[in-house]
């Protein structure tokens, strides 16, 4: 029986629906203590003194650490280096475990209080007296580069971490724009959003004095990477003496990729006090310290000929890095953003320039899509705006500019102007299908009828490409990655023919325990329940690069296939021996090796048992049936799709209601359609949230004024419709599964589609540019008063 392409119900569900999931905060160790961090209330402040004398006397206090205690320890490192255009090295100020002399953002940790209970740790934290001298703060990336702006780091004058450019020669692009029939120009802010996994970050550090071994339980997307960074770059402790476990993790969306200071503090601290330490963020701490996403301030121009063919694209972005460079932060506005500006279009000339800037805000790093949503927003807002300005149909404008179909096998991949070579693509069908689903033929008439009866309906389009499973390691290394981006997998066939798979990918909702098992059961021809997927524990799994960038199936799944192939190859040798036939005469299908053209066969279970009880066994062959593989892909994968939003804007209140959302995505081959659909749904909700309601608000002093669930607006159930989704299938030509990745697609395509729809609805008023999030307040103000101010 085949398991590929089937919506198998998830095997991991049982523990979650019965309340038996095991998240980090659910773990209790003997003698465990609890930590509370004292965090700077100021965005930028000198720390004159930290007085812990009263706090130390509080009940239950075990130990208090301040910046002075960890001053000699390295900070948490950045994992990606992007140097200046002029060759100068990226500015990389230390991100200390606790700050000693200066707080760089509201939420920077100043002290760690450890007590017998969490309540006692909180009580004692209140008693610490920190004498701050508040300094002027800067929160906006462009403002931070202006003359006289507050300086975040004394050793980074001008606050510029690096600048970067890519594409065709700038003067060629400028000339094409100068001479074009039409140029569409947009300046916009891609709003800063907070990932907001519903499980707050949590970490437990445990130093075992019996064997000098550390264990870190942490809500992470990649335990092995955390271990590597923790050992090799922060604490300098031997890697073989550290076990990192990422147990059940309640959502990540990027924010749990990174190695955070709290992880290092609980590990280091557990050796100081010789007891385990647990820290779990309160939601307000998560808002202040989980790496944020987006925050680009961009000016972009797209030039067209009179028929609507795109001639050139130019973009400049100020990317807000926050106060420190988080693990993958430098890659996001550069190699995950600038490189995607070809989109689905044949644009012959592209130039992108990025300034990555320090501010007195929390760090910004990869959030679902990471750079690709920003690139898509840039392109797709330009496309719909250009269509409006040139009085062309926005769908037609896209069809006119799509790259022609190529499968990456007989036809070569598509070489973009911005470094990447797309693997395979067929872009017309996704938009065509989306238009069919919308009923586009009739929509404009409905829209007109609605307008006549006083209703503002709008339709918005977005056709996107993304780059997933970034690889191969040598290429990403050349682009500045300080890590490889391969994956490992071990397939261990047990003597009885049951299979344990150890994957370096990590599931925090994606359903690996089901999808990966489908692949294994399918290839071996055994029942699904005979396969178990183990992940998230560095002691169990040899190595892993973790889960982010929609890489698990394309990279992690392919690593599993490599090991499966090795098992079958060795199994064939054993089967040939047992059947007294030559290997060439055997075929392996449906869980058994058969001598071609006969009924002589031997089962998978018999072969595995023989491999562990090798009495009657091929000479010279090692016993056992257990293989590890490392898979380093040949290229990125390039999913794509077309998203269409239909909105209604209520004139009286400015409220936007999302009436319909249609998504047609092409993520290559699909192993479990149910799970892929679920990934799309979730991505859509997050992308729609960015468009309509989400976004941080920092005041002038650098306070995050909407840093709680009371104040930061995320989509709730009654804000969204049921989604209408479909897909086309263009297999990836370079991995054994033909898969491309589905985790981020929904979040990449949806944001501009929604914004474009609102702009379309408002077009009767001549309004074509409103900044995200497009709240009812913003629209009401624009419709009622151009100054944006209201009268009491």
């Amino acid at each position, binding site marked *: 029986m085949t398991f590929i392409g089937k919506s198998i*119900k*998830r095997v*991991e*569900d*049982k*523990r*979650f*629906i*019965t*309340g*038996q*999931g*095991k*998240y980090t*905060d*659910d773990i*209790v160790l003997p003698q465990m203590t609890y930590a509370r961090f004292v965090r700077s209330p100021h965005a930028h402040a000198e720390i004159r003194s930290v007085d812990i004398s009263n706090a130390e006397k509080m009940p239950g206090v075990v130990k208090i650490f301040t910046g002075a205690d960890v001053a000699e320890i390295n900070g948490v490192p950045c994992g990606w280096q992007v140097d200046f255009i002029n060759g100068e090295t990226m500015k990389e100020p230390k991100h200390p475990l606790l700050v000693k002399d200066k707080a760089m953002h509201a939420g920077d940790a100043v002290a760690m209080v450890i007590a017998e209970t969490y*309540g006692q740790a909180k009580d004692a934290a209140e008693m610490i007296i920190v004498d701050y001298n508040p300094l002027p703060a800067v929160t906006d990336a462009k403002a931070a580069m202006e003359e006289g702006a507050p300086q975040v780091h004394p050793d980074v004058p001008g606050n510029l971490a690096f600048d970067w450019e890519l594409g065709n020669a700038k003067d060629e692009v400028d000339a094409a724009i100068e001479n074009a029939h039409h140029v569409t120009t947009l300046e916009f802010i891609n709003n800063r959003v907070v990932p*907001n*996994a*519903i*499980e*707050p970050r949590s970490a437990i550090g445990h130093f075992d004095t019996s064997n000098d071994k550390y264990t870190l339980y942490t809500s992470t997307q990649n335990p092995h990477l955390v271990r590597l960074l923790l050992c090799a770059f922060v604490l300098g402790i031997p890697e073989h003496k550290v076990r990192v476990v990422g147990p*059940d*993790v*309640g*959502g990540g*969306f990027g924010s749990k990729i990174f190695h955070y200071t709290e992880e290092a503090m609980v590990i280091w601290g557990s050796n100081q006090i010789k007891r385990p330490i647990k820290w*779990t963020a*309160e*939601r*307000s701490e998560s808002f202040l310290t989980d790496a944020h996403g987006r925050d680009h301030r961009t000016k972009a121009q797209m030039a067209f000929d009179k028929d609507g063919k795109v001639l050139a694209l130019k973009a400049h972005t100020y990317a807000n890095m926050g106060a420190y460079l988080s693990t993958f932060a430098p890659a996001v506005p550069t190699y995950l953003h600038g490189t995607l500006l070809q989109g689905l279009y044949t644009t012959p000339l592209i130039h992108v320039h990025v300034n990555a800037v320090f501010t007195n805000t929390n760090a910004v790093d990869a959030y679902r899509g990471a750079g690709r949503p920003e690139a898509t927003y840039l392109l797709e807002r330009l496309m719909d705006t250009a269509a409006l300005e040139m009085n062309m149909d926005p769908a037609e404008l896209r069809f006119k500019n799509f790259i022609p179909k190529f499968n990456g096998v007989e036809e070569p991949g598509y070489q973009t102007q911005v470094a990447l070579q797309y693997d395979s693509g067929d872009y017309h069908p996704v938009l065509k299908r989306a238009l069919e689903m919308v009923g586009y033929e009739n929509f404009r008439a409905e829209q007109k009828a609605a307008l006549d009866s006083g209703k503002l309906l709008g339709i918005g389009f977005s056709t996107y490409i993304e780059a997933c499973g970034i690889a191969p390691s040598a290429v990403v290394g050349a682009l500045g990655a300080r890590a490889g981006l391969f994956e490992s997998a071990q397939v261990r066939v047990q003597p009885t023919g049951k299979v344990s798979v150890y994957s370096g990918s990590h599931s*925090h*909702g*994606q*359903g690996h325990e089901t999808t990966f098992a489908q692949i294994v059961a399918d290839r071996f021809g055994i029942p699904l329940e005979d396969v178990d997927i183990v992940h998230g524990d560095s002691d169990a799994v040899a190595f892993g690069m973790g889960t982010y960038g929609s890489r698990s199936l394309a990279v992690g799944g392919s690593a599993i296939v490599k090991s499966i192939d090795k098992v079958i190859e060795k199994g064939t040798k054993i089967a040939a021996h047992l059947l007294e036939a030559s290997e060439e005469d055997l075929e392996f299908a449906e869980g058994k090796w058969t001598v071609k053209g006969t009924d002589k066969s031997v089962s998978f279970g018999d072969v595995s048992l023989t491999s562990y009880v090798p009495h009657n066994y091929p000479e010279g062959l090692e016993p056992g049936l257990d293989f590890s593989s490392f898979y380093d892909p040949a290229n990125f994968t390039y999913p794509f799709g077309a998203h269409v939003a239909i909105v209604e804007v209520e004139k009286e209140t400015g409220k936007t209601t999302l009436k319909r959302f249609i998504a047609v995505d092409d993520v290559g081959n699909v192993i479990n359609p*149910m*799970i892929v*659909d*679920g990934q799309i*749904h*979730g*991505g*859509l*909700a*997050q992308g729609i949230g960015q468009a309509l309601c989400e976004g941080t608000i920092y005041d002038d002093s650098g306070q995050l004024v909407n840093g*709680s*669930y*009371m104040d930061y607006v*995320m*989509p*709730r*159930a*009654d804000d*969204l419709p*049921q*989604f209408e989704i479909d897909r086309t299938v263009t297999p990836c030509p370079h991995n054994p599964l033909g898969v491309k990745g589905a985790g981020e697609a*929904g979040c990449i395509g949806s944001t501009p589609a929604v914004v474009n729809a609102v702009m379309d609805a408002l077009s009767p008023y001549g309004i074509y540019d409103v900044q995200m999030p497009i709240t009812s307040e913003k629209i009401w103000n624009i419709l009622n008063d151009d100054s944006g101010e209201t009268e009491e």
Partner: protein
Amino acid sequence: MKVKISLSVNGKSYERMVEPRTLLVHFLREELAMTGTHVGCDTSSCGACTVLLDDKALKSCTMLACQAEGHQVTTIEGMANGDNLHPLQQAFHEEHGLQCGFCTPGMIMNAADLLSNNANPTEHEIREALEGNFCRCTGYHNIIKSIQNAAAKMSAATV
């Protein structure tokens, strides 16, 4: 100072000494080691800690443990009957109504309250009823389908 409380959780009586400031959710998680009820925020906004108090959905972070004195609490751990899943649990599995699973217990408990008051809710009524529960994974799409599925199962069972 600690105070004595006695209450019933999932049909079993418990008597414990607790700090008066202990929230019901922390009592469940830390005193009783029932970690199926989750904490996702500090403002009673996310709904991950939803339990039933005398059959009515309650965010267990909004109540002190000592206020639950004498009441009957049902948590996610008390929903299945031995190996027989509650129809809502079964429906969440069938409709892929969960991904990371963190919001799931709260969603199921809230939905149980909804269905006990409205056996056949419309999509709109379900969406309104879930307004106090955040999910960041599913976009709510399959959660809606799960609750519709459970409503159908439960109606069929009572006919």
